[in-house]
């Protein structure tokens, strides 16, 4: 059963000439963990804020459960939210910040203390319970904002980039805790993040927004493996998918020395559109170093980024018309040097094909 439904919801800020969120249509199931991603300014926070009742809805309806909450005040929606900019109560201590909602809900003092302490422990904030927000570091403030939500047991959690200012270790730890908490309480959660790892590991489904419009909403694996259009393909995955225009020549697409076999379905779809070129996408990990053998093409290495566990190799594919930049993810133990000429190969089963006009995925 869908517990949260956006029904063609639109929001245009006063004075703006285009909607910040445009006809958002999305059902979120009971207990589902939905991750919302999209470029900065695409309308994620606005969507969350509309669901929380903090932003007017200019058109459309929002349901929580069976109730049309579009006109309901925030307090009647039973929602907990982590604000992107924290919005801590500056005049209250950390403990009071976290316990405020419980106090309003008249939770008995002891129970309240217990839950606050629990959340503080989870977020590594026990030492700071008596401090005011202004005497905290950025990450500590963010954790307080997080804590304020998780002490509650609402119907829906809304979290707007709740871990962006935490160090990797704490983030992993907290992320795991949130995920398990969410699963334990089975609270429907909408979670905004820019962290690809979070998006891929935490969400039951991931919704991708661009410019106020929903692009795709699917389980992470599917999003990664079968992006619905060029935007999603380019947005999900880091480093981003290599995308380029290739000429269709029979059952392959070619550009410079590179040629990629195109599946039958995609070929037919392209033909139906009357397209002579297609947009081909290849993920960095689908490129591998190889000898100058079958399907390999030469490229010149321009830059190598080493990350310890991985290495990203930036290379340029020669194309008389327009050279194409590529990124390949390589084993850090065997990286070429910048300036070197190498041969790369595309793993054929990992080629994505998109319409050059609409940008939509072609073929299955």
């Amino acid at each position: 059963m869908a517990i949260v439904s956006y029904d063609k919801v639109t929001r245009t800020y006063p004075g703006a000439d285009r909607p910040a969120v445009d006809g958002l249509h999305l059902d979120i199931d009971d207990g589902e963990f939905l991750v919302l991603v999209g470029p900065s300014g695409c309308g994620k926070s606005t969507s969350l804020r509309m669901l929380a009742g903090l932003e007017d809805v200019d058109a459309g309806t929002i349901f929580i459960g069976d109730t049309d909450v579009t006109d309901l005040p925030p307090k009647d929606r039973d929602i907990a939210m982590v604000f992107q900019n924290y919005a801590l109560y500056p005049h209250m201590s950390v403990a009071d910040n976290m316990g405020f909602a419980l106090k309003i809900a008249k939770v008995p003092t002891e129970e309240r203390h217990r839950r606050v302490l629990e959340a503080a422990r989870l977020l590594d904030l026990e030492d700071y319970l008596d401090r005011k927000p202004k005497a905290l570091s950025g990450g500590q403030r963010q954790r307080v904002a997080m804590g304020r939500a998780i002490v509650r047991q609402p119907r829906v959690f809304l979290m707007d980039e709740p871990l962006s200012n935490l160090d990797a270790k704490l983030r992993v730890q907290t992320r795991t805790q949130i995920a398990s908490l969410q699963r334990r309480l089975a609270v429907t959660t909408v979670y905004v993040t820019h962290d690809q790892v979070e998006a891929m590991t935490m969400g039951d489904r991931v919704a991708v927004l661009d410019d106020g419009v929903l692009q795709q909403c699917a389980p992470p694996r599917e999003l990664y493996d079968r992006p619905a259009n060029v935007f999603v393909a380019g947005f999900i995955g880091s480093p981003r998918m290599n995308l380029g225009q290739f000429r269709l020549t029979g059952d392959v697409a070619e550009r410079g020395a590179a040629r990629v076999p195109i599946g039958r379905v995609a070929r037919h779809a392209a033909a139906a559109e009357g397209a002579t070129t297609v947009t081909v996408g290849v993920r960095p990990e689908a490129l591998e170093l190889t000898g100058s053998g079958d399907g390999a093409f030469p490229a010149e290495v321009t830059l190598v980024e080493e990350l310890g566990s991985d290495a990203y190799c930036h290379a340029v594919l020669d194309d008389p018309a327009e050279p194409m930049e590529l990124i390949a993810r390589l084993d850090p133990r065997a990286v070429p040097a910048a300036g070197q000429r190498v041969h790369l190969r595309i793993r054929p089963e990992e080629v994505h094909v998109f319409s050059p006009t609409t940008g939509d995925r072609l073929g299955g």
Partner: protein
Amino acid sequence: MTMLARPETPRHAPTSAPVPNRRRKQRRWPLRLAVTGVVVFCLAPFFWMVVSSLRRSADIFDKTPVPTPVSLENYAAVLHPSQGFLRSLLNSLIVAGTTTVLALVIATLTAYAMARLDFPFKRLVLTAIIATCMFPVVSIVVPLLKLFTSWGWINTYQALIVPSMSFALPLAVWILTAFFRQIPAELEQAAMIDGCTRSQAFRKVILPLAAPGVFTTAIITFITAWNEFIIALTMTNRASMETAPVAISKFVGATEFEIPFGSQMAAGVVVTVPLVVLVVVFQRRIVDGLTAGAVK
């Protein structure tokens, strides 16, 4: 180059008293100078007032910076029970106190609406609110007197409080509106998400943070009401109901033409002292950084 430090070694004891910053010290003097200048500017005439109040009434023409002899004659006269001045101070306290509380409560509601709600004609309403207090007071006294006479309000506290309030309200509404607007809206929203009604969110979050504005308004309203004269004079004719400024206006010299300057000044000092105390108490709430750390 690699640096190592032991993670688990016991930390050194907290640094003793922080070394005072050198720069700060040198830079203090222009500030001191400015402070002194302004304080002198404010206090010099007041000093003269105090000095004058401490002269014998025969010496009021003296210009010595220290009264010789120092005399409490004026204070004795002002505070003499027959003057009923203490009673008038009490009246002033009641009137100004009630005015302040009521005006603050009412203005708070309106200011909240102005600052946080979106409805048409807001600007018009705000303008109308000040427009009402723009009529020269000297010209509404008579109509008001007629009105209150017909209501039997003469010699009542409400006849003093309601007009005072109407003069204080526009100011309070405007000040509070300006202040409420500056509190980040997200804080109120956070409170509503936390289950507060609008009014709870307002009381528990906005109001504490607007404290500097609220207390400033309180001080201003109180002082304005405390010093209101014409209405208070007109609406009372019983000594037991008059406020301090009215009582002062009734001070007379020993004979017809003598100006009771000494006792007026003494009374001025006496009515000012409670206000100074009030300011000293309330100004503690006028502190900065209240919203620090709230939003990013």
